[in-house]
């Protein structure tokens, strides 16, 4: 008899991100890493002396510590060949018309200006190593909110505040790529939300890496003062090259007393990217951080946003989804530190692997002796779409306090042939049946995303049945 025909859920369609422009106009520094390169980056930026010292010290740290010996292999990443600084041929603008055509076209195709018009309170756009656009609605500025490039902020009203916070949550000594970031960081956004100010619309920064063989090292620093409220969205993508690109950004978030911050990310790096990003948040008393995280791109990813619940009754939630397809090894999860009485955290993640992709959920929950009466629940579910793919769960817990309530549950499963048959017996095609099952699996996460991103995620998982959901 005929072979049984099995079709697959399509791989994520990255064609919408995979376009590139010649970077001949860009100014590039030599590949590799030396004190001279670091000095030159600093000099070009005209930044304060303390920052140059910080960079040089970070470089020393970088040279003195080893690569991590756990997680996916990063042997394909040769630091001597990574160009750490690529300046696009423009200064930062505050209107899209002044941005060079190629770059403007890039962000048009990614839908950034449209999003800005329809639902964002402000946008920052970075192209390779520098911001090319930053703008915020006047109404937000009137509320005292600051949203600008972090480099320009180093010379402004909040320079001292930034100096007191910069790389304190993520010290260069933390790991090799934090040290690298400290040495060559460039670009990124600074947000300051004053006490009691609540912004109804999100701010969004978008990071695009266009240059081949380059690294992107943006630094995002957000301060949400007591009783304030902010939703920040971060997006990123790159065209695919046949050499390694590196992303080692850093995100430092400070959430004040009773303040609230929602930090959403959809990551779509191309499959030659090593995404070694570090994100941390510190929450004061009754402050709340909500992480929403979608990881779809990259060749290799290490990503574990960390919530440090430093104040009494501070709260954290982490909602994440990771989709690892062919040639991808994505090691994602989160860290939670319960460091004060009565804190609470909840973690819910979904992982999908297909076509030989490897998806690992890795988490760390630490309860310090001060965490009396705190609680944390971790739930992770994985779905493997075929026999060649792999999903793992590696939860770690370090509990140093008697009176805490920590729970963990994990399930790993395959897409059920019985479910596919059932749906097909109702006239639904095999692809659509599988997409429906996968999207159903992802639904608890996608419903948390901002609408436009939920749509994007559904498209990523190739759900071709719009109108059928909801």
């Amino acid at each position, binding site marked *: *008899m*005929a072979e*049984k*025909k*099995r079709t697959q859920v399509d791989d994520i369609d990255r064609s919408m991100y995979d376009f590139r422009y010649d970077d001949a106009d860009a100014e590039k520094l030599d590949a590799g890493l030396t004190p001279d390169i670091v000095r030159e980056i600093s000099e070009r930026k005209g930044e304060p002396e303390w920052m140059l010292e910080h960079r040089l010290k970070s470089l020393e740290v970088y040279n003195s510590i080893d690569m991590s010996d756990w997680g996916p292999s990063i042997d394909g990443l040769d630091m001597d060949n990574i160009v750490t600084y690529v300046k696009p041929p423009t200064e930062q603008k505050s209107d899209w018309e002044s941005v060079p055509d190629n770059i403007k076209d890039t962000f048009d195709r990614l839908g950034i200006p449209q999003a800005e018009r329809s639902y964002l309170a402000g946008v920052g756009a970075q192209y390779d190593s520098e911001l090319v656009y930053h703008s915020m609605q006047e109404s937000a500025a009137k509320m005292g909110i600051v949203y600008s490039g972090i480099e320009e902020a180093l010379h402004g009203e909040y320079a001292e505040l930034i100096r007191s916070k910069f790389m304190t949550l993520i010290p260069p000594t933390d790991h090799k790529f934090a040290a690298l970031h400290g040495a060559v960081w460039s670009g990124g956004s600074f947000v300051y939300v004053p006490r009691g100010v609540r912004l109804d619309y999100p701010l969004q920064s978008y990071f695009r890496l266009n240059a081949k063989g380059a690294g992107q090292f943006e630094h995002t620093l957000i301060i949400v003062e007591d009783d304030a409220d902010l939703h920040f969205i971060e997006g990123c993508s790159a065209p695919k090259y046949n050499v390694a690109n590196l992303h080692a950004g850093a995100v430092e978030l400070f959430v004040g007393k009773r303040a609230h911050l929602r930090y959403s990310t959809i990551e779509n790096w191309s499959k030659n990217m090593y995404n070694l990003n570090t994100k941390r948040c510190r929450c004061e008393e009754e402050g709340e951080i909500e992480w929403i995280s979608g990881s779809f791109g990259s060749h290799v990813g290490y990503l574990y946003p960390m919530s440090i619940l430093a104040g009494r009754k501070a709260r954290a939630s982490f909602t994440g989804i990771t989709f690892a397809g062919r040639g991808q090894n994505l090691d994602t999860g989160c860290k939670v530190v319960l460091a004060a009485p009565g804190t609470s955290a909840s973690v819910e993640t979904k992982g999908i692997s297909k076509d030989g992709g490897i998806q690992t959920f890795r988490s760390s929950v630490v309860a310090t002796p001060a965490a009396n009466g705190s609680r944390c629940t971790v739930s992770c579910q994985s779905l493997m779409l075929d026999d060649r793919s792999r999903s793992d769960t590696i939860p770690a817990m370090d509990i140093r306090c008697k009176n805490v309530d920590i729970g963990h549950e994990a399930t790993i499963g395959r897409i*059920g*042939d*019985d*479910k596919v*048959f*059932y*749906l*097909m*017996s*109702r*006239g*639904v*095609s*095999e692809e*659509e*049946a599988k997409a*429906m*099952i996968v*999207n*159903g*699996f*992802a*639904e*608890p996460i996608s419903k948390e995303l901002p609408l436009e991103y939920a749509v994007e995620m559904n498209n990523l998982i190739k759900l071709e*049945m719009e*109108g*059928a*959901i*909801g």
Partner: protein
Amino acid sequence: MSNGALLRCCGLSAAVEEKQILHEIDFEVPQGEVHVLMGPNGAGKSTLGHVLMGDPVYDITAGSIEFDGADITELTPDKRSLAGMFLSFQAPVEIPGVPLRSFLRAMVEGRGEKMKNKEFRKQTKALAETLDMDPAYLDRELGVGFSGGEKKKVEMLQLLMLKPKLAILDETDSGLDVDALSVVSRGMELYREQCDGTLLIITHNTRILEHLNVDRVHVMVAGRMVAYGTASLIEEIDAQGFERYEAAVAID
């Protein structure tokens, strides 16, 4: 139909992982009739239902299936469904994250039917009410946390929405409670009333047949069709069981 048969199996044999389960099945179901398939546990009745619908777990090793005048032996389940065949599952699956209504919508749209959302909602709600089903279930995830009776209601709801030419009802699970039984009976009645449907009912439970005019009964033992007859055969089997058929197969 000119030659009378909506469904016809000729020498149909099927295996799962090299193990032969169905042996040269010949039978047919004419348009508009009600047929019952009976047999002891493990006779292959459910397998036959699944093979007719195209379950890829089974390999057809010989023979053919003709449906509505076309050979469908090689068709995938979705194509069979579009051709007008329906299988009500003994144990319907659960699909987390997919609301029942979305699934129904995909089912209808898969047939190229364009229906405005409002009209669709109205229709599904009305159907749910006909089956004494709380319309709130339409917004719940498909099958998740549904009782046996509720799952059966969902099956009957789909039957009445799709109005297939042939409905195969797999009710082999004798553990159906009274509630579920009455749901299935009601669904069958409505299906017969509304579209003069053709039924193939796989069951042990003769109570389910009480309100139906059964045209023909087929008896299956050890993967073979061993007897057929009129509705009177049901009473006979009720009284005497399958022993004499099993004995005949054993000698064979």
